[in-house]
């Protein structure tokens, strides 16, 4: 089956809610993520049963139900924890966490930082809309992106920048994308899926209903692709790039930092009865004699 054939496209429609049952507002940025996700999965040539999509709480987490592939949906702030465990068991699995800015950067912040550090070969697509959409418009940790604030309060602190945070925390793949450009997203996602460590994609995916400031038009106006020639393996260059874009009031789209770590390979853990037959207790007995 060729990677982008109609059959392949149909394959990714199975075991999922049909298109007309998708419950996102018309114009939601998450449609772009969904389209890009399918394109990227077809591009890397995996079969749906080899994929685990771990959804967070919120509109973003529903993505897992709108395409084929195994899906898991747990507690708020939990996706990276489940993804970590599954990947440790089955290294050949393509594990993708799909979670919003609230799930990842508020209630799931400690998990986010430590997973950056642990570096499992899991991709996080952080569907960042700068607002709690599902609960109807409360501030999220990324609320205020691009707004000039004269004064801050405890109630409304400055926003969190997941790209800078991920680099600081030790992530080995940090990228940004804009769901209004699914082809570019797909390109980034496919590279993230192939990355041998933790890949964080901060995807600006506008909430058309509850974030009237960071709209698709606003993102278009305030983003630029990472310039060609940027050395993704150089951490200092990544910081310089982020600083430069900040100064110009722009959001860089593309891979900002990529530096795979040397890691010990692990086999899939024993699961089946024949792999667990005749377990020898002797090495443990000898400790207690």
């Amino acid at each position: 089956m060729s990677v982008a054939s109609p059959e392949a496209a149909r394959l990714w429609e199975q075991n999922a809610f049909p298109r007309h049952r998708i419950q996102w507002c018309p114009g939601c940025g998450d449609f772009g993520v969904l389209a890009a996700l399918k394109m990227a999965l077809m591009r890397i040539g995996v079969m749906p049963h080899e994929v685990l999509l771990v959804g967070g709480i919120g509109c973003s987490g529903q993505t897992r139900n709108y395409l084929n592939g195994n899906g898991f949906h747990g507690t708020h702030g939990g996706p990276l924890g489940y993804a970590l465990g599954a990947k440790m068991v089955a290294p050949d699995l393509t594990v993708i966490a799909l979670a919003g800015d609230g799930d990842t950067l508020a209630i799931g912040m400690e998990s986010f930082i430590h997973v950056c550090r642990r570096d499992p070969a899991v991709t996080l697509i952080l569907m960042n809309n700068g607002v709690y959409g599902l609960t109807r418009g409360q501030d999220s940790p990324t609320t205020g992106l691009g707004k000039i604030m004269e004064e801050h309060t405890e109630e409304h602190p400055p926003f969190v920048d997941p790209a800078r945070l991920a680099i600081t925390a030790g992530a080995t793949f940090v990228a940004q994308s804009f769901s209004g450009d699914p082809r570019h997203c797909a390109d980034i996602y496919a590279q993230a899926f192939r990355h041998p460590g933790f890949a964080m994609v901060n995807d600006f995916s506008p909430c058309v209903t509850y974030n009237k400031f960071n709209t698709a038009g606003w993102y278009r106006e305030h983003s630029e692709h990472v310039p060609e020639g940027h050395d993704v393996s150089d951490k200092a260059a990544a910081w310089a790039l982020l600083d430069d874009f900040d100064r110009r009031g722009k959001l860089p789209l593309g891979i900002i930092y990529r530096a795979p770590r040397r890691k010990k390979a692990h086999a899939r853990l024993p699961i089946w009865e024949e792999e667990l037959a005749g377990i020898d207790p002797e090495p443990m007995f000898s400790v207690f004699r």
Partner: protein
Amino acid sequence: MVVNNLKLLVGGVQLRDAVTTVTDILGKLFVRAGLHVLAMERGYASTIYGAHQFDPMVVAATPPLSYGDDRTDVLVSLEHDTNPDSPIKPNRDTILRHGKNLKEGGVLIYDNSTETVEVGELQARGVKVFPLPARQIAQRELKMEVTKNTIVTGALLRLLEFDMDYALFGAYLEGRFLSKGRGVVDINLEAARRGRAAVEEILSSNGWDSVGYRLEPQPSSVPNLLLTGNEAIAMGSILAGCRFYSGYPITPATSILEFLEKHLPRYGGRVLQGQNERESIRAAIGASIAGVRSAVGSSGPGISLKVEEFGLAGATETPLVIVDTQRAGPATGMPTKSEQGDLAMAIYAGHGEIPRIVLSAGTIEECYSLAFEAFDLADKYQCPVFLLSDLTLTDGRKNLPETYFTENQKPVVRHGLVRAADPGGDGYKRFAITESGISPRSIVGTPGAIFKVSGTEHDETGLITTDPPKRKAIFEKRMRKMQTYLKEDAKPPQVFGSPDGVPLLIGWGSTKMPLLDAQARLRSEGMETCVIYFTHIWPFPVHLVAPLLRQGSVLIVVEQNYSGQLADVIQQECLIETRRVLKYNGRPFYTADIAGGVRQVLAGGPGVVRVGEEAPDAAVETVPEGD
């Protein structure tokens, strides 16, 4: 002369005096000589250094029923004063705390390197006192302070007339130290001899032939293992096929994590020290979805933090074993003291209702055997299974014949795991409605068996729904698994004695041991009772329990908590009134606590008897126990 029957208690300052080295070495030697050892109270504090620590150990010719009363035959104080001018005398601490519990005719060894302790009162009770300047000998004669406990060990071997030729002790030292050079073995043997010489001198100067206690080797046909309850759970888990374990360091569950970190990788498994309690359980749930037998372990505060994920595991029908090594709560409570306070949490914790199974171990044997059952039930019923233990077991040590472990090792059976289903199509339903409530389970990566799993309510395929008939059907399917469990796997409580018309002494957890001991004591005093002891607590097997309990004259539930959590469950499920004997002062139940409590209840006393010391002893200045 008392032969092969004594309780030894070693006390000292935590870390500095390395209290458990003496009991660890002696325990191994005794077991190798065919004696039986039971040590259920490691008596440590939640500090690294400086608190009082004590480690009582029963040594006997036959397997001891329990650790008995808080009475000691041989008391060893390893303490010494670092500042002789201080008004607090640390080298008296063990003697002040435990001297009062020394039996008449007992033995006291204490380190008098810095000061002699006034022990006239003990001597008046016939206690033979051996002031032994172990630290001084170690420092001045052997130029090696670390040998001080070996000097004490040598003194004890002489006093108990055990292994006088050092055949066992020498072999132990060689096994442990020969890789560091012969010199290390020799200096330890020399230290033991110095301890022995010091004892000989005191014996002869007092004109004593012996101290009245002796340990004699007993031939044993099979080698015995000496291990803790946590080690039994960890070993059982590996043999039961657990290949993923995660935990966050917490007393007293940490030793499971440490044992598995060391041993599980050799069996192809992985162990994750979570960054917090929630990451631990989430990773374990993720691992279970990917197919392995997976477990988490923690204690009260950590279990509280995991509660949200219990509901998730229940709703998503994810097998998961949760080991709760209970310690005294609430909040931080007493991290190093035992309690049975988490039963209600294991049964009820979480919002909404889920299928769940609660098992509870009461002995080190059961820590091992229930581990097999826990993983098996989790697989079969695809739900969280709690394995409760308590600190008395986690740190308690006991010898068991190797054959116990080999005979109770069970082959791993992966119930209903789908290996490949309907490869061409999409007919697989992860949550198919079945009569038993159990749906064929696929794991991630199975061709043709793709599943969507959600903690949000879902239909048979796993796609989310709030449709009332679908919600009703899937909820009932999940909960039906518990009916199937009650039919196929629930076990009745263990019954010791005949329940007909006699008081029933009911318990769970480590209370089993003193309950049986108290039953024997009451019988020797002419009172017949029947002990009923629960390992399979939830879902509560009413059909197996209620008819049994109705046979008794009165129900007395003995628990190490404030309110009587099992008693509440029994009243709620069986509609039978219960009386309670409760203890929650941080010390385990002693035989006398239970026997006394039962007598009080039966004499028409209050329905709830709370045992344990009423007030602190006369204000003695002792080393604080830390916080």
